[in-house]
């Protein structure tokens, strides 16, 4: 969604050049990607296109075979600790500790990022309350539904006030109300100047929330831009992202 009137600084929050990763096959193929500061960037693509692998390399979870990753000007491969200090990662499979309560989990995350408890404690409360977990603050997470676990994981990612939030399918398993909570929270963060990169299969979310959309197929970025730009690039003036996506992916599949 374009938000007219909101000034966007143009410094890049993330700059990826020639990023390459091979497993049994080439998963990411010399990918170039730039995400501007304060931007909501959606990365879409078919299953196995290389979205998650790309983001895992950006988050420091996978070492690329080649290429460079810069987060706010920090070389994330040379100085991963500095890059991680300003980054948060949320995966589609919420990884939290069953035996900790949401508050204890957030206390642990804040401790890992070295945040002063005087700041992190109220932030943790506020985050959990805003995500509808007020009644469960002191319950261990082992009985939580997937949606609740995802919300705890998201709160953990936000409690250290990251400048760059990387989310891999964060809405998977969330009900409509929870999804709206999460989208609202992410929108607030972007408005406050935070940068968000998100992969999603829900094209409607990308269409409505993202400033720019990147379409990835076979490990390469095959199209990028605002929805209007994508339409223009593909010669359609009035079509949905879903139709555009299918057209782009079909072209790539045929070319491959």
């Amino acid at each position: 969604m374009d938000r007219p009137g909101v000034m966007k600084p143009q410094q890049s929050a993330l700059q990826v050049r020639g990023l390459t990763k091979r497993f049994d096959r080439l998963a990411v193929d010399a990918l170039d990607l730039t995400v501007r500061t304060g931007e909501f960037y959606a990365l879409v693509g078919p299953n196995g296109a290389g979205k998650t692998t790309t983001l895992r390399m950006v988050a420091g979870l996978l070492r690329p075979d080649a290429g460079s990753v810069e987060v706010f000007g920090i070389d994330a491969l040379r100085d991963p600790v500095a890059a991680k200090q300003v980054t948060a990662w949320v995966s589609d499979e919420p990884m939290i500790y069953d035996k900790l309560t949401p508050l204890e989990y957030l206390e642990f995350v804040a401790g890992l990022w070295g945040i002063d408890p005087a700041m992190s404690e109220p932030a943790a409360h506020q985050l959990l309350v805003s995500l509808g977990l007020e009644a469960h603050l002191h319950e261990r997470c082992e009985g939580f539904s997937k949606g609740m676990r995802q919300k705890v994981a998201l709160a953990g990612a936000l409690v250290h006030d990251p400048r760059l939030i990387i989310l891999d399918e964060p809405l998977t398993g969330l009900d409509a109300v929870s999804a709206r909570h999460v989208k609202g929270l992410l929108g607030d963060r972007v408005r406050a100047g935070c940068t968000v990169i998100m992969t999603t299969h829900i094209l409607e979310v990308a269409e409505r929330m993202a400033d720019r959309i990147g379409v990835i197929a076979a490990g390469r970025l095959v199209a990028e831009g605002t929805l209007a730009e994508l339409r223009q690039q593909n010669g359609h003036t009035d079509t949905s992202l879903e139709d555009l996506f299918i057209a782009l992916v079909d072209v790539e599949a045929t070319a491959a």
Partner: protein
Amino acid sequence: MSQATALTWFARHEIRLAWREWLAMMTGGRRKRSRAVIGLIVFAAVMHLPAYAVIGRFAGLEAPLDKSSLIVMSATILLAWALMLSQAIESVTRVFYARADLDLIMSSPVRLTEVFSVRIAAIALSVIAMALLLSTPFVDVLVIGGGARWFAAYGVVIAIGLSAAAVAIAVTIALFRLIGPSRTRLVAQILAAVIGAGFVIALQIAAILSYGTLSRFAVLTSDAAARFAPDADSLVWWPARAVLGDGEALLLLLATGLVLLGLVMATFSPRFADTAARASATVTPDHRGSRARAFRTGSRQQALRRKEFQLLWRDPWLVSQTLMQLLYLVPPAVMLWRSFSDSALAIVLVTPVVVMAAGQLAGGLAWLTISGEDAADLVATAPLNPSRVVRAKIEVVLIVISVIFAPLVVALGFASPPQAAVTAAGVIIAAASATAIQLWFRVQGKRSQFRRRQTSSRLATFAEAFSSIGWAATGALALAVPVIAVISGLMTAAILAATWKLSPRRE
């Protein structure tokens, strides 16, 4: 498909599942199964050597036996039954909580009573199959040394397997009724662990208190035991007589086992579906809250250590495993107490037991803290060098080991300061070695996979066991024959060096 065909099909399905679960457990999920199976066969063949050493001299035993021999043989059968019961309780719990097919089965158009009868039978079959596998080297040795009559021992294994499965199902379902599904899981796990070792430990304690030795046979072969034992024609001795080839006793045992299992099937199969459904619906095992308290300050490593301590303390499975390790420490503790009062030389035996326990416990803790990280991505994306993360986790292992073993070492210090020093050194070295092995072979996993940690790397498992045994032997030898202790220590260090050399390269 007729009902009978459906049941046969389901039985085949159950056996295939049990076989694959077992194979996955034995091979660590590796694809090269043929190699794993050959390895297992070689292992089973090699097991005939220790089996010969342990049981070979008894191959010539023939009925009628004297009371001491009957007691020893019956106690051995009882121990085997306890171990099978322990395994069966685990299997039943796994079927209730871990199998993901309950929804599918219960929504299918089959009669659940019959399907669950098959499942109960499959549990019995898997328990018996495992027992037969483990007992084969021993029975083989007896058959080779004493003749075909010893084949009857296989029948006894089958009979006690049937009864162990029956009792396990009855106990687990009774626990469901009494304490509910959420608590049953934990209690059944602890029960399974304690039953497996409790019998041996109880015998050891009785032996120490009565005869000042750790040998469990001291109690069984004592005159007092023979005096209290029933007459030779008592039913109590029928399992022992059946092992010796008494056909009538064997048939009675088999019939009893079958009747017990049949009764359990008839009684519990109709309720099995209910119980399983309740268990699978119990996804909220623990709603205990924690009291509100302020966030704590501290370094990033402190945050990691605090988290590890919290998770260890709140992990019921780990608590039960730790309890098991501590249970093994009770006999040496009793020995220590007894020796302290009369200065017996047997106190030397305390050192290897304590060192061995420290090594084994440290291995388990190290797996949980280093490999069993449930939020691996979170920790990996934290602004902290990986080496500092690992260091914080190792510190947790060593702190827990210190807290558990320090009181015992201090108590030992009052009885014999040099032995306390040797024991302390042994505990530290054994714990550090086991932790190092876990570090070299670390594979990211979930804490819930703790039970299967030993299958992820056979080499690491054996290295951990040999390292603990090696350091335990070195500790004992350091007190008795220090020169040989140097050789034993060097051998153990060589095992560690070879293990490191064979371990996967780390970044």
